[in-house]
């Protein structure tokens, strides 16, 4: 920690506190109230926030620093999950070997793909990565079924070998006996806060991933990557070969994706091929841009944003809407419900699409810029003269 600058340290501490207190922060509305629908503080979604946060942080190391836009990052997530589930099938339900293998396999896989794709730049690079991911998806869904279980998704069966499984070993994913699904519930009045072990494992990895990312951003290596983004030709003229640097960034971000995949399988031991489909890769790109490319915190916010909408808005159905507006006169109630029902439940995609557009139109720097604008407004009242300085300080990178 002592290697971090003051602003980085405070960002890191902020993230740590947020991650630690997520069960409280994400559960602001009392159970049974109309707003409880918007609570996100249940284990599965919190785990997803952390996992996709790791994924987006890793993606940002490649895209945010070097400017290379990979459109096939979901492939690494996929192979990570597959290797983790294979560890569960072959060894035991302990998540440690699973996560280690998923990071290694994703690293090797990304080294291979990166070595080929990084021969090209710009959109040619993007499409090359996209094609590799699509090939992985197609093969995993059909030909590679013995390895991936195809359409159904790879899962653990009762008759799998599981060589390290003792008679007393846990049947569910665990960390040396501590089950990932075990949850401690704290009841405070009408609130119920859930503290899930699996989530805290994910959160710990998120913090680790975040810390490494900060170190990379601030290192000479990170500086080199930024130089590649700024002007690769000029860099090459100085006699430097930039390829090893970009390849290293590519592999690191591939390993982040593998870690995310391994964690995903550790929380829920099933790996489906659609994890590698191009829309999944596109989602990672969207998360990063939405949050703010090249910022440290942005990608995590973007990941949370998209996952929140996917899981919360899709569950609001007409019946829920009717209960919300039941105090209104019938005609008005029906009219409001009729309008809103296009945006929630089966229409949650529409809301997401509209928000994508709005954010990119009004907040060119993504959610991070929105946050900064608010911060500046608050600070601006106090010290207008230092506005410029505050802005620079609040921007961790670029």
């Amino acid at each position: 920690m002592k290697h971090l600058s003051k602003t980085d340290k405070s960002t890191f501490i902020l993230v740590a506190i947020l991650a630690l207190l997520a069960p409280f922060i994400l559960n602001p509305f009392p159970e049974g109230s109309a707003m409880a629908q918007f609570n996100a503080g249940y284990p599965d979604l919190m785990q997803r926030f952390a996992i996709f946060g790791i994924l987006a942080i890793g993606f940002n190391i490649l895209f945010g620093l070097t400017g290379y836009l990979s459109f096939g990052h979901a492939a690494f997530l996929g192979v990570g999950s597959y290797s983790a589930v294979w560890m569960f099938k072959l060894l035991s339900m302990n998540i440690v070997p699973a996560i280690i293998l998923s990071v290694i396999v994703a690293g090797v896989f990304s080294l291979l793909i990166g070595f080929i794709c990084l021969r090209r730049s710009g959109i040619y690079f993007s499409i090359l990565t996209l094609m590799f991911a699509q090939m992985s998806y197609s093969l995993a869904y059909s030909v590679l079924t013995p390895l991936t279980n195809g359409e159904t998704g790879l899962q653990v069966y009762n008759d799998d070998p599981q060589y390290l499984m003792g008679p007393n070993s846990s049947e569910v994913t665990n960390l040396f006996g501590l089950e990932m699904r075990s949850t401690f519930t704290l009841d405070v009045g009408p609130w119920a806060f859930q503290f899930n072990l699996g989530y805290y494992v994910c959160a710990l990895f998120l913090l680790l991933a975040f810390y490494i990312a900060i170190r990379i951003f601030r290192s000479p290596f990170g500086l080199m990557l930024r130089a590649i983004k700024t002007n690769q030709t000029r860099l090459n003229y100085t006699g430097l070969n930039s390829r090893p640097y970009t390849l290293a960034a590519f592999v690191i971000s591939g390993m982040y994706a593998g870690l995310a995949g391994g964690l995903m399988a550790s929380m829920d031991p099933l790996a489906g091929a659609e994890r590698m489909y191009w829309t999944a890769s596109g989602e990672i790109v969207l998360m990063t841009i939405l949050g703010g490319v090249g910022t440290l915190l942005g990608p995590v916010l973007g990941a949370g944003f998209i996952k929140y909408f996917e899981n919360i808005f899709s569950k609001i159905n007409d019946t829920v809407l009717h209960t919300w507006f039941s105090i209104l006169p019938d005609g008005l109630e029906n009219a409001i419900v009729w309008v809103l029902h296009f945006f929630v439940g089966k229409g949650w995609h529409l809301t997401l699409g509209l928000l994508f557009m709005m954010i990119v139109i009004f907040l060119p720097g993504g959610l991070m810029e929105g946050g900064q604008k608010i911060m500046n407004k608050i600070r601006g009242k106090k010290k207008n003269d230092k506005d410029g300085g505050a802005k620079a300080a609040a921007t961790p990178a670029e």
Partner: protein
Amino acid sequence: MDAIFLQILNGLDKGSAYALIALGLTLIFGTLGVVNFAHGALFMIGSFCAVTLSKILTLSTVTLDPTKTDFLGNPLKVKTPYVVEWFGESTGNAMIDWSVPLAILFAIPVMLLLGWVMERGLIKHFYKRPHADQILVTFGLAIVIQEIVKATYGANPIPTPAPDQFVGSYNVGALIGLDASYPYWRMIYFGFSVTIIAAVFSFLKFTTFGMVVRAGMADRETVGMLGINIDKRFTIMFGVAAAVAGLAGVMYTPINSPNYHQGMDFLVLSFVVVVVGGMGSLPGAVLAGFLLGTLESFASMNEVKGFFEALYLPSIDQIIIYLVAIIILLTRPRGLLGRAGVMEE
């Protein structure tokens, strides 16, 4: 031989759709420098122009037929389209039957207008923004368009058949001494797309307007300095690109029943086609479209699949396009006919 001949036809037919979509996409790249992820959605809107027209033509008066009952035992509702009432049985039914070709006339103004609105209202503000922002905003737009269509027409495909005259197939192989029947409508689709492609190329090649656009694609600043309003012309080209995608969609409806997500299904492939053809190259896009279409057709032949299976590469048809595209991109850095410096940074 028959089989090979048929697969060539299939390849040209698939290639037609790829080429038309990629042509518009690369036109937008080349003129405006914008990555348009909503281009597939434009193709889809074209298809739904045909659906909409056929819905309009079949707007009906409802009369009750007491002699028959519906599934609940109530008198059956018999629908008579207004056009049948107004124009008589034969003319009215013929109009409904011909709704797909008629939709071309309907789609051209709709697509041009839509393209113009899209460019002026949204894309214009994204010229100077990073490509990532362009992707995000056009992807968002594509989702919104999709969802609106889904809310209106549902998620299931909607059958939109060709006119009766073009149903069935013709033994086109007989012309060169083979036995190979090919569907009428697919031949029409190929002819149609060749016409459109030729029209776009001659428009750019032989008109002053097209000359200026080409000049602008090569060096926008200089053209601007000559006092020519290049932006206005590029806006019109955006409309043209939208119309090309839309027409590809209209004519495609009898081949595959349109559904709201078909744009996304074509999106990845059309980007692959554009990149293989080379960024900013119109002939490249057309060439790559037909090339990959033919490739896909041949890869699905049993003999080819069997050959690759013997090489331990089963189901080669799943990945052949990507494999060949990767090889092309690795041997030719800018695709088949790409220009240096376009979208390479």
